[in-house]
Protein backbone atom coordinates (compact mmCIF):
# COMPACT_ATOMS: atom_id res chain seq x y z
CA UNK A 1 0.00 0.00 0.00
CA UNK A 2 2.82 2.39 0.85
CA UNK A 3 4.49 1.45 -2.43
CA UNK A 4 1.37 2.34 -4.41
CA UNK A 5 1.01 5.67 -2.62
CA UNK A 6 4.69 6.43 -3.12
CA UNK A 7 4.54 5.65 -6.82
CA UNK A 8 1.53 7.94 -7.09
CA UNK A 9 3.40 10.66 -5.19
CA UNK A 10 6.39 10.44 -7.49
CA UNK A 11 4.06 11.15 -10.39
CA UNK A 12 2.34 14.01 -8.59
CA UNK A 13 5.52 15.95 -7.78
CA UNK A 14 6.49 16.22 -11.42
CA UNK A 15 7.10 19.79 -12.42
CA UNK A 16 6.60 20.90 -8.83
CA UNK A 17 10.20 22.02 -8.42
CA UNK A 18 11.09 19.46 -5.77
CA UNK A 19 13.88 17.87 -7.78
CA UNK A 20 15.06 21.30 -8.78
CA UNK A 21 15.23 22.21 -5.10
CA UNK A 22 17.18 19.05 -4.35
CA UNK A 23 19.64 19.94 -7.09
CA UNK A 24 19.83 23.62 -6.20
CA UNK A 25 20.55 22.95 -2.54
CA UNK A 26 23.35 20.47 -3.07
CA UNK A 27 24.97 22.05 -6.11
CA UNK A 28 24.54 25.48 -4.54
CA UNK A 29 26.69 24.47 -1.59
CA UNK A 30 29.37 23.21 -3.96
CA UNK A 31 29.20 26.32 -6.12
CA UNK A 32 29.79 28.46 -3.02
CA UNK A 33 32.96 26.54 -2.28
CA UNK A 34 34.04 26.59 -5.91
CA UNK A 35 33.81 30.35 -5.68
CA UNK A 36 35.49 30.44 -2.29
CA UNK A 37 38.45 28.37 -3.45
CA UNK A 38 38.50 29.97 -6.87
CA UNK A 39 38.81 33.49 -5.48
CA UNK A 40 41.45 32.79 -2.86
CA UNK A 41 42.98 29.56 -4.11
CA UNK A 42 46.53 30.32 -3.01
CA UNK A 43 45.55 31.48 0.45
CA UNK A 44 43.32 28.48 1.16
CA UNK A 45 45.62 25.84 -0.32
CA UNK A 46 48.39 27.27 1.80
CA UNK A 47 46.22 27.24 4.89
CA UNK A 48 45.13 23.63 4.33
CA UNK A 49 48.37 22.38 2.83
CA UNK A 50 48.61 19.60 5.40
CA UNK A 51 45.42 17.99 4.06
CA UNK A 52 43.72 19.73 1.16
CA UNK A 53 40.75 17.35 1.05
CA UNK A 54 40.12 17.83 4.74
CA UNK A 55 40.19 21.58 4.25
CA UNK A 56 37.61 21.41 1.49
CA UNK A 57 35.39 19.12 3.53
CA UNK A 58 35.60 21.45 6.53
CA UNK A 59 34.66 24.49 4.43
CA UNK A 60 31.68 22.68 2.93
CA UNK A 61 30.59 21.30 6.27
CA UNK A 62 30.16 24.76 7.80
CA UNK A 63 27.08 25.18 5.60
CA UNK A 64 25.70 21.64 5.70
CA UNK A 65 23.50 21.93 8.83
CA UNK A 66 21.80 25.15 7.69
CA UNK A 67 21.30 23.71 4.19
CA UNK A 68 19.75 20.55 5.67
CA UNK A 69 17.29 22.52 7.79
CA UNK A 70 16.31 24.81 4.95
CA UNK A 71 16.02 21.88 2.57
CA UNK A 72 13.86 19.88 4.98
CA UNK A 73 11.58 22.89 5.42
CA UNK A 74 11.15 23.71 1.75
CA UNK A 75 10.87 20.15 0.49
CA UNK A 76 8.28 19.24 3.15
CA UNK A 77 6.25 22.29 2.26
CA UNK A 78 6.42 21.51 -1.45
CA UNK A 79 5.37 17.91 -0.93
CA UNK A 80 2.39 18.98 1.17
CA UNK A 81 1.45 21.78 -1.20
CA UNK A 82 0.78 19.34 -4.01
CA UNK A 83 -2.32 18.31 -2.05
CA UNK A 84 -3.11 21.61 -0.32
CA UNK A 85 -3.05 23.73 -3.48
CA UNK A 86 -5.36 21.45 -5.40
CA UNK A 87 -7.71 20.75 -2.48
CA UNK A 88 -7.07 17.13 -3.20
CA UNK A 89 -6.80 15.74 0.32
CA UNK A 90 -10.49 14.88 0.23
CA UNK A 91 -10.07 13.01 -3.04
CA UNK A 92 -6.92 11.23 -1.92
CA UNK A 93 -8.22 10.19 1.49
CA UNK A 94 -11.53 8.92 0.10
CA UNK A 95 -9.56 6.35 -1.89
CA UNK A 96 -9.20 2.82 -0.54
CA UNK A 97 -5.88 3.44 1.13
CA UNK A 98 -5.10 3.86 4.80
CA UNK A 99 -4.10 7.25 6.09
CA UNK A 100 -1.04 5.68 7.63
CA UNK A 101 0.11 4.65 4.14
CA UNK A 102 -0.59 8.09 2.69
CA UNK A 103 1.34 9.78 5.49
CA UNK A 104 4.22 7.33 5.43
CA UNK A 105 4.57 7.59 1.64
CA UNK A 106 4.92 11.37 1.87
CA UNK A 107 7.45 11.04 4.69
CA UNK A 108 9.42 8.55 2.63
CA UNK A 109 9.28 10.88 -0.35
CA UNK A 110 10.80 13.67 1.73
CA UNK A 111 13.36 11.25 3.11
CA UNK A 112 14.35 10.11 -0.37
CA UNK A 113 14.50 13.63 -1.82
CA UNK A 114 16.81 14.77 0.99
CA UNK A 115 18.87 11.61 0.58
CA UNK A 116 19.34 12.34 -3.12
CA UNK A 117 20.51 15.85 -2.22
CA UNK A 118 23.08 14.35 0.17
CA UNK A 119 24.24 11.94 -2.50
CA UNK A 120 24.71 14.77 -4.99
CA UNK A 121 26.65 16.71 -2.38
CA UNK A 122 28.98 13.77 -1.73
CA UNK A 123 29.57 13.04 -5.39
CA UNK A 124 29.94 16.74 -6.14
CA UNK A 125 32.51 17.16 -3.38
CA UNK A 126 34.70 14.52 -5.00
CA UNK A 127 34.35 16.21 -8.38
CA UNK A 128 35.06 19.63 -6.92
CA UNK A 129 38.16 18.39 -5.12
CA UNK A 130 39.52 16.85 -8.30
CA UNK A 131 38.78 20.02 -10.27
CA UNK A 132 40.64 22.00 -7.63
CA UNK A 133 43.60 19.65 -8.24
CA UNK A 134 43.65 18.18 -4.75
CA UNK A 135 44.82 14.88 -6.23
CA UNK A 136 43.10 11.60 -6.86
CA UNK A 137 45.39 9.35 -4.88
CA UNK A 138 43.94 9.65 -1.44
CA UNK A 139 40.38 10.88 -1.83
CA UNK A 140 38.72 10.37 1.58
CA UNK A 141 35.53 8.78 0.24
CA UNK A 142 34.25 7.64 3.59
CA UNK A 143 34.67 11.06 5.20
CA UNK A 144 32.95 12.65 2.22
CA UNK A 145 29.96 10.32 2.63
CA UNK A 146 29.91 11.09 6.35
CA UNK A 147 30.05 14.81 5.52
CA UNK A 148 26.53 14.78 4.13
CA UNK A 149 24.89 11.68 5.58
CA UNK A 150 25.78 11.93 9.27
CA UNK A 151 24.45 15.50 9.58
CA UNK A 152 21.41 14.35 7.57
CA UNK A 153 20.65 11.70 10.17
CA UNK A 154 21.13 14.32 12.87
CA UNK A 155 18.65 16.58 11.06
CA UNK A 156 16.01 13.86 10.61
CA UNK A 157 13.88 15.03 13.56
CA UNK A 158 13.46 18.40 11.84
CA UNK A 159 12.45 16.68 8.60
CA UNK A 160 9.87 14.60 10.47
CA UNK A 161 8.55 17.67 12.28
CA UNK A 162 8.37 19.73 9.10
CA UNK A 163 6.52 16.98 7.26
CA UNK A 164 4.05 16.57 10.10
CA UNK A 165 3.31 20.30 10.29
CA UNK A 166 3.22 20.86 6.54
CA UNK A 167 0.96 17.89 5.87
CA UNK A 168 -1.56 18.80 8.56
CA UNK A 169 -1.64 22.60 8.27
CA UNK A 170 -3.01 24.19 5.15
CA UNK A 171 -1.30 27.46 6.01
CA UNK A 172 2.41 26.86 5.54
CA UNK A 173 3.53 30.09 7.20
CA UNK A 174 4.06 28.44 10.58
CA UNK A 175 6.21 25.48 9.47
CA UNK A 176 8.28 27.65 7.15
CA UNK A 177 8.89 30.29 9.81
CA UNK A 178 9.84 27.59 12.25
CA UNK A 179 12.16 25.93 9.74
CA UNK A 180 13.98 29.12 8.82
CA UNK A 181 14.38 30.08 12.47
CA UNK A 182 15.81 26.65 13.21
CA UNK A 183 18.14 26.90 10.22
CA UNK A 184 19.55 30.19 11.43
CA UNK A 185 19.79 28.96 15.02
CA UNK A 186 21.67 25.88 13.82
CA UNK A 187 24.56 28.11 12.75
CA UNK A 188 25.47 28.55 16.38
CA UNK A 189 25.22 24.85 17.13
CA UNK A 190 28.76 24.72 18.51
CA UNK A 191 27.56 26.68 21.53
CA UNK A 192 24.59 24.46 22.37
CA UNK A 193 24.63 21.63 24.88
CA UNK A 194 24.44 18.30 23.12
CA UNK A 195 20.92 17.41 24.29
CA UNK A 196 19.51 20.22 22.10
CA UNK A 197 18.44 18.56 18.80
CA UNK A 198 19.56 21.64 16.86
CA UNK A 199 23.17 20.75 17.64
CA UNK A 200 22.93 17.20 16.30
CA UNK A 201 23.66 17.81 12.60
CA UNK A 202 26.79 19.69 13.71
CA UNK A 203 27.88 17.23 16.38
CA UNK A 204 27.25 14.16 14.26
CA UNK A 205 30.13 15.06 11.97
CA UNK A 206 32.36 17.16 14.17
CA UNK A 207 32.61 14.77 17.12
CA UNK A 208 34.09 12.10 14.92
CA UNK A 209 35.07 10.11 17.95
CA UNK A 210 31.47 9.44 18.99
CA UNK A 211 28.97 10.32 16.29
CA UNK A 212 26.73 7.50 17.51
CA UNK A 213 25.17 9.75 20.12
CA UNK A 214 23.77 12.59 17.98
CA UNK A 215 23.06 10.25 15.07
CA UNK A 216 21.28 7.67 17.20
CA UNK A 217 19.34 10.35 19.05
CA UNK A 218 18.41 11.90 15.69
CA UNK A 219 17.02 8.66 14.33
CA UNK A 220 15.10 7.84 17.49
CA UNK A 221 13.60 11.30 17.89
CA UNK A 222 12.70 11.43 14.19
CA UNK A 223 10.85 8.14 14.54
CA UNK A 224 8.97 9.39 17.61
CA UNK A 225 7.96 12.61 15.82
CA UNK A 226 6.89 10.58 12.78
CA UNK A 227 4.70 8.33 14.93
CA UNK A 228 3.08 11.25 16.73
CA UNK A 229 2.53 13.07 13.43
CA UNK A 230 0.96 10.01 11.89
CA UNK A 231 -1.35 9.59 14.88
CA UNK A 232 -2.48 13.18 14.44
CA UNK A 233 -2.92 12.79 10.68
CA UNK A 234 -4.98 9.62 11.04
CA UNK A 235 -7.48 11.11 13.43
CA UNK A 236 -7.83 14.44 11.69
CA UNK A 237 -11.07 15.64 10.11
CA UNK A 238 -10.51 16.46 6.46
CA UNK A 239 -12.27 19.57 5.29
Amino acid sequence: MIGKALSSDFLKIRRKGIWFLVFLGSVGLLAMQALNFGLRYDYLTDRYKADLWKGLIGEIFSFVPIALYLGATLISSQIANVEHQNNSWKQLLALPISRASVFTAKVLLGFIAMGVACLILSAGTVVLGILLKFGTDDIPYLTILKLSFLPYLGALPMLALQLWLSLTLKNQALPITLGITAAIASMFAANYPEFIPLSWPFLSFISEAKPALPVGAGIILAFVVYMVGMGHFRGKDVN
Partner: protein
Amino acid sequence: MRELVIETKDLNKKYRGRYAVRNLNLEIGRGEIYGFLGPNGAGKTTTIRMLLGLIRPTMGSIHIFGKDLRKEKLNILRKVGSLVEYPSNYGHLTAVQNLEAVRRILDVPKSRIDEVLSIVSLTKDAKRPVKGYSLGMKQRLGIATALLGNPELLILDEPTNGLDPEGIHEIRELIRSMPQQHGITVLVSSHLLSEVEQMAGTVGIIREGELVFQDTISNLQQQASGGFRLVVSEPAEALQLIRGQGYAGRLEDGGLRLDQLSDPEVALLVKRLVDHNHAIYRVEEKRRTLEDIFMQVIEQGGLS
Protein backbone atom coordinates in the same frame (compact mmCIF):
# COMPACT_ATOMS: atom_id res chain seq x y z
CA MET B 1 -37.66 -5.55 0.01
CA ARG B 2 -35.13 -3.14 -1.38
CA GLU B 3 -31.50 -3.67 -0.60
CA LEU B 4 -29.96 -0.67 1.15
CA VAL B 5 -26.62 0.56 -0.11
CA ILE B 6 -26.33 3.37 2.39
CA GLU B 7 -27.94 3.34 5.79
CA THR B 8 -27.15 5.79 8.54
CA LYS B 9 -28.57 5.55 12.04
CA ASP B 10 -28.90 8.63 14.23
CA LEU B 11 -25.89 10.22 12.64
CA ASN B 12 -24.63 13.30 14.44
CA LYS B 13 -21.76 15.70 13.87
CA LYS B 14 -21.10 18.44 16.35
CA TYR B 15 -18.75 21.35 15.73
CA ARG B 16 -17.97 23.48 18.78
CA GLY B 17 -21.27 22.74 20.48
CA ARG B 18 -23.34 23.26 17.35
CA TYR B 19 -24.85 20.35 15.47
CA ALA B 20 -23.97 20.42 11.78
CA VAL B 21 -25.81 17.13 11.31
CA ARG B 22 -28.40 15.83 13.75
CA ASN B 23 -30.04 12.39 14.06
CA LEU B 24 -29.76 11.71 10.37
CA ASN B 25 -31.27 8.46 9.09
CA LEU B 26 -30.52 8.08 5.41
CA GLU B 27 -31.77 5.07 3.47
CA ILE B 28 -30.56 4.64 -0.06
CA GLY B 29 -31.47 1.55 -2.06
CA ARG B 30 -29.44 -0.24 -4.70
CA GLY B 31 -29.71 1.19 -8.21
CA GLU B 32 -31.35 4.39 -7.05
CA ILE B 33 -30.42 7.92 -7.88
CA TYR B 34 -30.87 9.62 -4.56
CA GLY B 35 -31.14 13.38 -4.56
CA PHE B 36 -29.80 14.88 -1.36
CA LEU B 37 -31.29 18.31 -1.09
CA GLY B 38 -30.95 21.25 1.19
CA PRO B 39 -29.94 24.90 1.28
CA ASN B 40 -26.27 25.82 1.56
CA GLY B 41 -24.97 25.11 5.03
CA ALA B 42 -27.68 22.58 5.87
CA GLY B 43 -25.18 19.78 6.43
CA LYS B 44 -25.04 18.06 3.05
CA THR B 45 -21.29 18.24 2.63
CA THR B 46 -20.71 17.32 6.28
CA THR B 47 -22.86 14.23 5.79
CA ILE B 48 -21.06 13.26 2.60
CA ARG B 49 -17.67 13.70 4.25
CA MET B 50 -18.82 11.36 7.00
CA LEU B 51 -20.01 8.80 4.44
CA LEU B 52 -16.54 8.86 2.87
CA GLY B 53 -14.74 8.54 6.19
CA LEU B 54 -13.15 11.97 5.81
CA ILE B 55 -14.57 13.16 9.11
CA ARG B 56 -15.71 11.18 12.08
CA PRO B 57 -19.30 11.25 13.28
CA THR B 58 -19.79 12.53 16.81
CA MET B 59 -22.44 9.86 17.26
CA GLY B 60 -24.36 7.29 15.25
CA SER B 61 -23.43 4.66 12.71
CA ILE B 62 -22.94 4.39 8.96
CA HIS B 63 -23.44 1.18 7.02
CA ILE B 64 -22.52 1.02 3.34
CA PHE B 65 -23.13 -2.21 1.40
CA GLY B 66 -24.28 -3.53 4.78
CA LYS B 67 -20.82 -3.08 6.30
CA ASP B 68 -19.88 -0.85 9.20
CA LEU B 69 -17.83 2.07 7.90
CA ARG B 70 -15.79 2.25 11.09
CA LYS B 71 -14.67 -1.35 10.83
CA GLU B 72 -14.37 -1.94 7.09
CA LYS B 73 -13.57 1.49 5.72
CA LEU B 74 -11.09 0.42 3.05
CA ASN B 75 -13.26 -2.48 1.83
CA ILE B 76 -16.16 -0.08 1.46
CA LEU B 77 -14.15 2.70 -0.19
CA ARG B 78 -12.86 0.23 -2.78
CA LYS B 79 -16.38 0.20 -4.24
CA VAL B 80 -17.15 3.89 -3.85
CA GLY B 81 -16.33 6.73 -6.22
CA SER B 82 -16.62 10.28 -4.98
CA LEU B 83 -16.53 13.90 -6.00
CA VAL B 84 -16.67 16.30 -3.07
CA GLU B 85 -17.58 19.91 -3.84
CA TYR B 86 -15.20 21.87 -6.05
CA PRO B 87 -12.79 19.86 -8.22
CA SER B 88 -9.64 18.55 -6.62
CA ASN B 89 -7.50 17.65 -9.62
CA TYR B 90 -3.77 18.25 -9.78
CA GLY B 91 -3.62 21.36 -11.95
CA HIS B 92 -0.02 20.91 -13.11
CA LEU B 93 -0.72 17.43 -14.48
CA THR B 94 -2.68 16.38 -17.55
CA ALA B 95 -5.96 14.51 -17.31
CA VAL B 96 -4.20 11.23 -18.05
CA GLN B 97 -1.56 11.88 -15.38
CA ASN B 98 -4.27 12.84 -12.89
CA LEU B 99 -6.05 9.57 -13.51
CA GLU B 100 -2.77 7.67 -13.44
CA ALA B 101 -1.94 9.13 -10.02
CA VAL B 102 -5.22 7.75 -8.70
CA ARG B 103 -4.96 4.52 -10.71
CA ARG B 104 -1.67 3.63 -9.04
CA ILE B 105 -3.50 3.58 -5.71
CA LEU B 106 -6.62 1.82 -6.98
CA ASP B 107 -4.64 -0.76 -8.90
CA VAL B 108 -7.00 -1.08 -11.87
CA PRO B 109 -5.77 -1.84 -15.40
CA LYS B 110 -4.32 1.06 -17.41
CA SER B 111 -6.98 0.64 -20.08
CA ARG B 112 -9.52 1.90 -17.57
CA ILE B 113 -8.10 5.43 -17.95
CA ASP B 114 -9.14 5.59 -21.61
CA GLU B 115 -12.52 4.12 -20.77
CA VAL B 116 -13.42 6.71 -18.15
CA LEU B 117 -12.07 9.53 -20.31
CA SER B 118 -14.39 8.49 -23.10
CA ILE B 119 -17.35 8.17 -20.71
CA VAL B 120 -16.96 11.83 -19.77
CA SER B 121 -15.90 12.83 -23.33
CA LEU B 122 -12.50 14.18 -22.39
CA THR B 123 -10.42 11.97 -24.69
CA LYS B 124 -9.63 14.89 -26.96
CA ASP B 125 -8.22 17.08 -24.16
CA ALA B 126 -6.60 14.30 -22.17
CA LYS B 127 -3.02 15.41 -22.80
CA ARG B 128 -3.41 19.02 -21.71
CA PRO B 129 -2.56 20.30 -18.21
CA VAL B 130 -5.73 20.46 -16.18
CA LYS B 131 -5.17 24.04 -15.03
CA GLY B 132 -6.22 25.19 -18.50
CA TYR B 133 -9.56 23.37 -18.28
CA SER B 134 -12.93 25.03 -17.90
CA LEU B 135 -14.81 24.34 -14.68
CA GLY B 136 -17.13 21.97 -16.52
CA MET B 137 -14.20 19.96 -17.87
CA LYS B 138 -12.58 19.81 -14.43
CA GLN B 139 -15.85 18.60 -12.99
CA ARG B 140 -16.09 15.93 -15.69
CA LEU B 141 -12.54 14.85 -14.94
CA GLY B 142 -13.63 14.63 -11.30
CA ILE B 143 -16.42 12.27 -12.32
CA ALA B 144 -14.00 10.27 -14.46
CA THR B 145 -11.74 9.95 -11.42
CA ALA B 146 -14.71 8.81 -9.36
CA LEU B 147 -15.55 6.17 -11.98
CA LEU B 148 -11.99 4.90 -12.32
CA GLY B 149 -12.25 2.12 -9.76
CA ASN B 150 -15.47 0.61 -11.21
CA PRO B 151 -17.50 1.75 -8.20
CA GLU B 152 -20.87 0.35 -7.21
CA LEU B 153 -21.74 3.57 -5.45
CA LEU B 154 -21.07 7.08 -6.67
CA ILE B 155 -21.20 9.95 -4.19
CA LEU B 156 -21.32 13.32 -5.90
CA ASP B 157 -21.44 16.53 -3.89
CA GLU B 158 -22.87 19.43 -5.87
CA PRO B 159 -21.50 18.15 -9.18
CA THR B 160 -23.17 20.90 -11.20
CA ASN B 161 -22.26 23.80 -8.94
CA GLY B 162 -20.95 26.73 -10.92
CA LEU B 163 -21.51 25.16 -14.33
CA ASP B 164 -23.23 26.78 -17.29
CA PRO B 165 -26.51 25.32 -18.58
CA GLU B 166 -24.76 23.17 -21.14
CA GLY B 167 -22.37 21.80 -18.53
CA ILE B 168 -25.25 21.11 -16.17
CA HIS B 169 -27.06 19.24 -18.92
CA GLU B 170 -24.03 17.09 -19.71
CA ILE B 171 -23.42 16.15 -16.10
CA ARG B 172 -27.09 15.42 -15.59
CA GLU B 173 -27.23 13.06 -18.56
CA LEU B 174 -24.07 11.40 -17.34
CA ILE B 175 -25.53 10.81 -13.88
CA ARG B 176 -28.81 9.59 -15.29
CA SER B 177 -27.05 6.96 -17.35
CA MET B 178 -25.18 5.50 -14.37
CA PRO B 179 -27.78 3.10 -12.92
CA GLN B 180 -28.92 1.79 -16.32
CA GLN B 181 -25.60 1.48 -18.10
CA HIS B 182 -23.27 0.70 -15.26
CA GLY B 183 -25.54 -0.53 -12.47
CA ILE B 184 -24.24 2.16 -10.15
CA THR B 185 -26.15 3.61 -7.24
CA VAL B 186 -25.80 7.38 -7.11
CA LEU B 187 -26.06 9.84 -4.24
CA VAL B 188 -26.09 13.35 -5.62
CA SER B 189 -26.42 16.45 -3.50
CA SER B 190 -27.69 19.81 -4.60
CA HIS B 191 -29.35 22.93 -3.30
CA LEU B 192 -31.60 23.11 -6.35
CA LEU B 193 -34.69 20.92 -6.44
CA SER B 194 -35.31 21.65 -10.12
CA GLU B 195 -32.00 20.02 -10.87
CA VAL B 196 -32.46 16.95 -8.71
CA GLU B 197 -36.01 16.22 -9.79
CA GLN B 198 -34.77 15.69 -13.34
CA MET B 199 -32.52 12.84 -12.36
CA ALA B 200 -33.36 11.47 -8.93
CA GLY B 201 -35.98 8.87 -8.09
CA THR B 202 -35.77 9.41 -4.37
CA VAL B 203 -35.08 12.59 -2.46
CA GLY B 204 -33.94 13.40 1.03
CA ILE B 205 -34.27 16.97 2.18
CA ILE B 206 -32.01 18.22 4.93
CA ARG B 207 -32.51 21.41 6.85
CA GLU B 208 -30.32 22.71 9.65
CA GLY B 209 -28.71 19.32 9.93
CA GLU B 210 -31.94 17.35 10.19
CA LEU B 211 -33.59 15.18 7.56
CA VAL B 212 -37.08 16.63 7.13
CA PHE B 213 -38.26 14.59 4.15
CA GLN B 214 -37.23 11.31 2.59
CA ASP B 215 -39.39 9.65 -0.03
CA THR B 216 -39.76 9.13 -3.74
CA ILE B 217 -40.12 12.08 -6.08
CA SER B 218 -43.57 10.87 -7.12
CA ASN B 219 -44.77 10.87 -3.53
CA LEU B 220 -43.43 14.37 -3.20
CA GLN B 221 -45.34 15.34 -6.32
CA GLN B 222 -48.55 13.88 -4.92
CA GLN B 223 -48.28 16.25 -2.03
CA ALA B 224 -48.23 18.99 -4.57
CA SER B 225 -52.00 19.39 -4.76
CA GLY B 226 -52.82 22.64 -3.08
CA GLY B 227 -56.64 22.75 -3.11
CA PHE B 228 -59.15 24.29 -5.49
CA ARG B 229 -60.15 27.63 -6.79
CA LEU B 230 -63.77 28.33 -7.65
CA VAL B 231 -64.94 31.33 -9.56
CA VAL B 232 -68.68 31.89 -9.16
CA SER B 233 -71.22 34.67 -9.71
CA GLU B 234 -71.78 35.55 -6.02
CA PRO B 235 -68.69 34.54 -4.11
CA ALA B 236 -69.69 35.83 -0.69
CA GLU B 237 -72.98 33.92 -0.61
CA ALA B 238 -71.39 30.87 -2.14
CA LEU B 239 -68.75 30.88 0.61
CA GLN B 240 -71.48 30.86 3.28
CA LEU B 241 -73.10 27.92 1.57
CA ILE B 242 -69.82 26.03 1.40
CA ARG B 243 -69.06 26.69 5.04
CA GLY B 244 -72.57 25.48 5.84
CA GLN B 245 -71.61 22.17 4.25
CA GLY B 246 -68.70 21.87 6.62
CA TYR B 247 -65.84 22.79 4.28
CA ALA B 248 -63.21 25.37 4.97
CA GLY B 249 -62.64 28.11 2.42
CA ARG B 250 -61.90 31.77 1.98
CA LEU B 251 -62.32 34.58 -0.50
CA GLU B 252 -59.33 35.20 -2.68
CA ASP B 253 -58.89 37.36 -5.77
CA GLY B 254 -62.63 37.49 -6.45
CA GLY B 255 -62.86 33.71 -6.27
CA LEU B 256 -63.09 31.07 -3.59
CA ARG B 257 -60.14 29.14 -2.33
CA LEU B 258 -60.83 25.66 -0.96
CA ASP B 259 -58.59 23.07 0.61
CA GLN B 260 -57.80 19.78 -1.01
CA LEU B 261 -60.93 17.73 -1.74
CA SER B 262 -61.67 14.29 -3.10
CA ASP B 263 -63.43 13.96 -6.47
CA PRO B 264 -66.90 13.07 -5.00
CA GLU B 265 -66.64 16.00 -2.63
CA VAL B 266 -65.94 18.37 -5.50
CA ALA B 267 -68.88 16.95 -7.47
CA LEU B 268 -71.22 17.31 -4.50
CA LEU B 269 -70.12 20.85 -3.79
CA VAL B 270 -70.62 21.95 -7.38
CA LYS B 271 -74.07 20.36 -7.41
CA ARG B 272 -75.09 22.23 -4.23
CA LEU B 273 -73.92 25.51 -5.69
CA VAL B 274 -75.80 24.92 -8.91
CA ASP B 275 -78.92 23.95 -6.95
CA HIS B 276 -78.71 27.33 -5.22
CA ASN B 277 -78.55 29.10 -8.55
CA HIS B 278 -74.91 30.07 -8.46
CA ALA B 279 -73.29 30.36 -11.84
CA ILE B 280 -70.00 28.53 -11.84
CA TYR B 281 -67.38 29.95 -14.18
CA ARG B 282 -64.34 27.93 -13.22
CA VAL B 283 -63.20 25.03 -11.05
CA GLU B 284 -59.44 24.88 -10.94
CA GLU B 285 -57.08 22.63 -9.07
CA LYS B 286 -54.25 24.65 -7.63
CA ARG B 287 -51.08 22.63 -7.99
CA ARG B 288 -48.10 23.76 -6.06
CA THR B 289 -44.83 23.35 -7.82
CA LEU B 290 -42.21 21.12 -6.27
CA GLU B 291 -40.23 24.27 -5.70
CA ASP B 292 -43.06 25.59 -3.48
CA ILE B 293 -43.10 22.37 -1.50
CA PHE B 294 -39.38 22.43 -1.21
CA MET B 295 -39.47 25.97 0.10
CA GLN B 296 -42.21 25.00 2.55
CA VAL B 297 -40.16 22.08 3.80
CA ILE B 298 -37.09 24.25 4.08
CA GLU B 299 -38.88 27.02 5.91
CA GLN B 300 -41.08 24.99 8.22
CA GLY B 301 -39.08 21.83 8.57
CA GLY B 302 -41.76 19.47 7.32
CA LEU B 303 -44.80 19.04 5.11
CA SER B 304 -48.09 20.33 6.45
